[in-house]
């Protein structure tokens, strides 16, 4: 085998347009992290490691034929449920919430696994019953979604619970849940809002209230919103220039390498930078939609659509939170925020998208 053949085989299952978008976002991540970490290489270097690990996993998944992927749905889902129940019973408490499970060697956060596990399971379920879909099947699928969501909401991790609900809802929507049922659900959700409110933990209510009046807790959580909004707004059209963000470098911005990294970017690169960043996200999301449209089976269509829409949701929720139109929920900016777990989860999803795209191409030819 020549070098060239080897190379071709290596990239055979990579989707190059998607990879380009992902790569540019990762590059942005490293550039912004360098600034956010006060012009030091600490965070960028360990982010490179995160990226390397995640890319490797993505390549492996992309090379996995689809029927293998489908076969993992049930085991992953069951494992995730077991871990979630484990967390509820024996989990470690941190920041007042029970989210982590200590396995002796390492602590894991099973809700991360479910970000992939839930849509995968639902898509698998719909594929299995494709020929004879009735309302009952949608009901079962909704149950598959609600069980883990309830466990995660109880931890309490409202942000993750809502995001997983969203990714599950996308599957239901794409699977063809009737408009009438959706309308009914919407009405039911609005009606039950007061009940839900009473079930929320104090800090969660606090966070939602803060959205309307961040000055209420100007030293604590509201401080995040106030300072982030100032950072974005003061960035202006062209930004203050790389490494020149005063909000960032005068220590006004909290959590600026993780959840609030967009404020750093926005302050230093301005509206123009934001447009470019949105453009990069459009590239990734758009390619995801193309892959979804091309997908040949029911399972792959649902899976690809859910992955793409979920990615878009993460990006929207994070930027909305930083720019002060959504409450502060702990959602990182996808592919840009510092952190290994979210990078890995995202790239596992992209690996699936690539597998979906490239394996059916081979079938066609």
């Amino acid at each position: 085998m020549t070098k060239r053949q080897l190379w071709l085989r290596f990239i055979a299952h990579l989707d190059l347009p998607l990879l380009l978008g992902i790569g540019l976002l990762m590059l942005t991540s490293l550039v912004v992290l360098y600034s956010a970490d006060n012009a030091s290489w600490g965070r960028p270097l360990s982010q490179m490691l995160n990226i390397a690990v995640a890319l490797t996993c993505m390549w492996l998944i992309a090379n996995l034929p689809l029927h293998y992927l489908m076969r993992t749905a049930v085991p992953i889902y069951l494992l995730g449920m077991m871990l979630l129940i484990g967390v509820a019973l024996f989990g470690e408490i941190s920041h007042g919430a029970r989210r982590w499970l200590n396995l002796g060697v390492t602590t894991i956060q099973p809700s991360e696994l479910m970000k992939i596990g839930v849509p995968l399971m639902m898509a698998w379920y719909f594929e299995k019953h494709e020929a004879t879909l009735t309302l009952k099947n949608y009901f079962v699928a909704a149950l598959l979604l609600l069980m883990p969501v309830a466990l995660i909401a109880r931890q309490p991790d409202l942000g993750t619970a809502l995001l997983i609900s969203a990714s599950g809802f996308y599957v239901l929507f794409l699977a063809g849940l009737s408009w009438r049922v959706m309308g009914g659900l919407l009405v039911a959700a609005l009606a039950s809002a007061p009940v839900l409110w009473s079930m929320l933990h104090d800090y969660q209510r606090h966070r939602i209230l803060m959205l309307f009046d961040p000055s209420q807790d100007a030293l604590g959580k509201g401080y995040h919103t106030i300072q982030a909004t100032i950072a974005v707004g003061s960035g202006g059209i062209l930004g203050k220039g790389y490494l020149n963000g005063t909000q960032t470098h005068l220590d006004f911005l909290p959590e600026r390498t993780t959840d609030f990294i967009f404020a750093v970017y926005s302050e230093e690169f301005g509206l123009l930078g934001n447009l470019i960043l949105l453009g990069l996200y459009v590239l990734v999301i758009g390619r995801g939609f193309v892959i979804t449209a091309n997908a040949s089976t029911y399972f792959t269509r649902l899976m690809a659509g859910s992955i793409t829409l979920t990615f878009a949701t993460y990006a929207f929720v994070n930027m909305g939170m930083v720019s002060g139109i959504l409450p502060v929920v702990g959602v990182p900016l996808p592919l840009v925020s510092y952190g290994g777990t979210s990078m890995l989860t995202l790239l596992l999803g992209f690996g699936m998208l690539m597998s979906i795209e490239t394996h059916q191409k081979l079938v066609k030819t």
Partner: protein
Amino acid sequence: MAKHVELKNHLREIFYFRLRLAISVGFVLLLLAILLVRFIYLQAVRHDYYQTLAESNRISIVPIVPNRGLILDRNGLVLAHNYSGYTLEITPNKTANLEATINELSALIEITPKDRKRFNKLLAERRNFETLMIRNRLSDEEVARFAAQQYRFPGVEIKARLFRDYPYGAKTAHLIGYIGRINQTDVEQLEENDLAANYRGSDYIGKTGLEQSYESELHGATGMEQVEVDSGGRAVRMLSRTPPSSGNTLVLSIDAKLQEIAEQAFGNYRGALVAIDPNNGEVLAFVSKPGYDPSLFIDGIDTQSWDELNNSPDHPLNNRALRGQYPPGSTVKPFMALAGLYYNTRSPDRTISDPGYFNLPGSSHQYRDWKKDGHGSVDMFKSIVISCDTYYYGLATEMGIDNISSFLSRFGFGKKTGLDLEGETSGLLPSQEWKMKRYQQKWYPGDTVSVGIGQGYNLVTPMQLAYATATLANNGVGYKPHLVREVRSSRSHENRLIENKSAFDLQIAAAHLDLVKRAMAAVTQPGGTAAQAAAGAPYRMAGKTGTAQVVGMKQGEKYDASKLDERHRDHAWFIAFAPADQPRIALVVLAENGGHGGSTAAPIARKVLDYYLLGKVPQPLPDLSDKEVEEHD
């Protein structure tokens, strides 16, 4: 195949799917549009407003650190307080040449090499735009001298700060503990507990002792000021202010005078003393000798002082009263006697004949009494008064280790007392099961023999023994010991009494208690092991001496203190309560390598009791350590 039949259907499904996909695309575009509008609003429309906030007139939220709560003794004497003083601080980011600046400064104000070392340490850990202390406790004259020259030193300023001070210094170091600069571990801990907001601006946090265990009471609530600052970071105008509220004041049950007298009574001995009011569990004195100067730690201890403290053979950083674990020696005998009565193993009037040693049936190994020729005929009362070892070798063997452990644990042996200080150790109450788990060995009868006189595997902390003594003194009714008596709120001026609802009655028969307490009272009478120390006291004092071996003796070898290295000499114990019939105080004295309990530990106890019961302040203590003393244990 089936596919062919459903082909039309399939195409329709694809159509419906693509329709939904198109709706999804529309949804995403809507989200993007919302973001775009928001960005344009913030960055183009309202840019000037935010620009103003961020740049020229930055609104800064300045936390106002609350004053830390005071710590007072039961009579209102101050054990920890704050005083205001001036520090000289440098903002490295605003200073061009640090080294040169510091050199120039040192011409004006004395800057010692220690100050420089500490500054360099802070410099390595600093966050951006933080001001770092180079000198603390400036005199008024130094402040004036610098103020006149300030224009020469951009980025250097004088700040008024509150300093923590511990008037009793080393004497209360193990009790009060100290505060220190907040480090990375503390930050993580605070974030974990969602307290980070309340510590914005705080530089210090309780690290050990009461400063640590009552951190949440002492710290107070941080206030804040919204100020307009110019681009140089100077405050121009105050917009709003939420005042901080000071930390709460702790009023301890400790009597500082008593603590001081106890501390002095130790002379050059290392050791520990814990005194408790048996009627309510209030700790009256809590001494661990030697102490250390807590103020060294507040702004980060320099390496040299740290090495001195850490490598000292006296281990001054070790809280002996709370964490030191020692064999209880003969102080365990009163409790052992109660166990014997409880299990009905020995009736009080049964006498044994003591030949000066004990051996287990079928073994020639001799367990020796401290008195070579034995005590002759010994009943339970006498066994406590003269501390007869042979009596307890036999009693322990008859009861068996598991019975012993189960009874002693009721007095709190082998368990933490629950004192309101962190880091308490639990001692060791051995059992067959414990030995199997720990050493994978079965329990030998010989192990039980040693436990009978408080040697062997069992270990106690002075705190534990004090709790057990107080419980015995109070006729088997125990109170959870505590150091803080009252928390005075700075905000509402209401006082929260730490009450003792946790009384626990061990249900010991009155007749048993009476016998053991009478015997302990006789210990301090002529003929008892602590007669000398108690001679002439106008009150009745009950006690028990003890000696804990540091190194084992071979068969037939005689203990000779003068031949042993000082640090291998026995530890001296004394437990006591007084007045014997109506106890107001129970205490434990441990003098490390002190030799005999009666001659070393008991006189220390006497001084403390004299002060507490009579108000008598002792004369300087004569040096007893080298005097040959007749009596033993």
